[in-house]
């Protein structure tokens, strides 16, 4: 089959278009997908992560995936960040060093993810961040990565990609999985098959809320992410199935998407000019912890 991809920005509309692609290819098996990009005028580089997750699902059903007719300007972005090399395109040097490349990790690859962050976040505005902030930023990315490991129930792995915008002093990093989505985890937890995506995301964002059952408490990772974005004046997107969540300029918003994005995506945009000290709480004495 041929699917015509449209322009993809890092916003709700961009995710709607990826959901359309997922739905259109949902029944395709042992066949071929030609992703025609002739209508793509622009592609936000970090969106290679969720696109990669969608295409991995397609390929997992024994389909050959081919990407064709990509306009030069878009092709350059996606060759520089190595997304297209998996589709037999030649890599391209990133002269401005603003790329945070596309990478697919297996669930047990925390060490490789650490290497990736060490290697690719350096020189991307991190020096201007305080040491404390760089550390906290990395911690939050690991929280998101581990959420995907624990909750996605997907063996396809975790898809990561980013972009640094030196002029705007912003850095976007997106972590995507091709899993069951927050909605299905919450449905199972409450044994209620009718719970919708938006209330499921809203529920999952509350401190102490976790779908883990049994001995391990949880429900702090997304809360910490949120605390960080608030302090940093950064931005968060969470997309999961039909749900879209955005936190920007201190305000949260939720929207129901028309399409079903098959998995969960978290984008964290950090303000790299931030020089806050990042004390998460007033001093805690070791003897007062337990």
């Amino acid at each position, binding site marked *: 089959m041929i699917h015509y991809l449209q322009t993809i920005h890092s916003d709700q509309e961009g995710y709607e278009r990826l959901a359309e692609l997922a739905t259109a290819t949902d029944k395709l098996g042992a066949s071929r997908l030609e992703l025609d990009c002739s209508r793509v005028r622009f592609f936000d580089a970090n969106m290679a992560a969720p696109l990669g997750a969608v295409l991995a699902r397609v390929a997992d059903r024994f389909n050959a995936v081919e990407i064709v007719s990509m306009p030069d300007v878009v092709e350059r972005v996606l060759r520089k960040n190595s997304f297209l090399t998996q589709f037999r395109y030649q890599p391209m040097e990133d002269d401005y060093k603003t790329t945070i490349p596309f990478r697919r990790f297996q669930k047990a690859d925390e060490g490789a993810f650490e290497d990736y962050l060490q290697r690719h976040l350096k020189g991307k505005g991190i020096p201007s961040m305080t040491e404390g902030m760089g550390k906290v930023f990395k911690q939050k990315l690991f*929280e998101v990565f581990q959420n995907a*490991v624990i909750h996605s129930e997907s063996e396809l792995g975790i898809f990561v990609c980013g972009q640094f915008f030196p002029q705007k002093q912003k850095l976007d990093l997106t972590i995507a999985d091709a899993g069951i989505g927050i909605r299905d985890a919450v449905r199972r937890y409450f044994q209620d098959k009718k719970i919708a995506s938006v209330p499921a995301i809203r529920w999952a964002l509350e401190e102490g809320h976790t779908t883990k059952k049994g001995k*391990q*408490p949880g429900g*702090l990772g997304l809360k910490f992410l949120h605390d960080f974005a608030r302090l940093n004046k950064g931005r968060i997107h969470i997309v999961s199935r039909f749900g879209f969540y955005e936190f920007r300029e201190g305000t949260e918003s939720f929207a129901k998407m028309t399409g*079903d994005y098959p998995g969960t995506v978290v984008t964290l945009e950090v303000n790299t000019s931030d020089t806050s000290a990042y004390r998460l709480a007033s001093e805690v004495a070791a003897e007062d912890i*337990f």
Partner: protein
Amino acid sequence: MMSKEVIVRVFDIVGGPLCVSAEDGQRVHDKIVPLLREGTKVVLSFEQVETLISAFLNAAIGQFYGEFPEERIRELLTVRDMDEDDMAILKRVVDNAKKYFSNPKAFDEALREEMGHDEE
């Protein structure tokens, strides 16, 4: 008689400076549980640990609150070589675990707030 004290080095159990998975947290937990059961004082050292997250701490420490009374944990467990930011995270993990295990059923019920049922 003073009970003996054992220093448990997280770095050695995990095998590196990254404490970023629930699975590694579980290994730390499993290593400590027998010590706490026999009443040994445990000093958990985070020396050389560079990155740690809540999912790790929930598994490594949070679940003790489902296995031992709070006073027993306070009596037997201490942490050291942890920077202030990480201690703040651990404190949140511990407070959350206490709430979670104090009455798991009530906690669950409290979580079951109104859920939307839009058609999807």
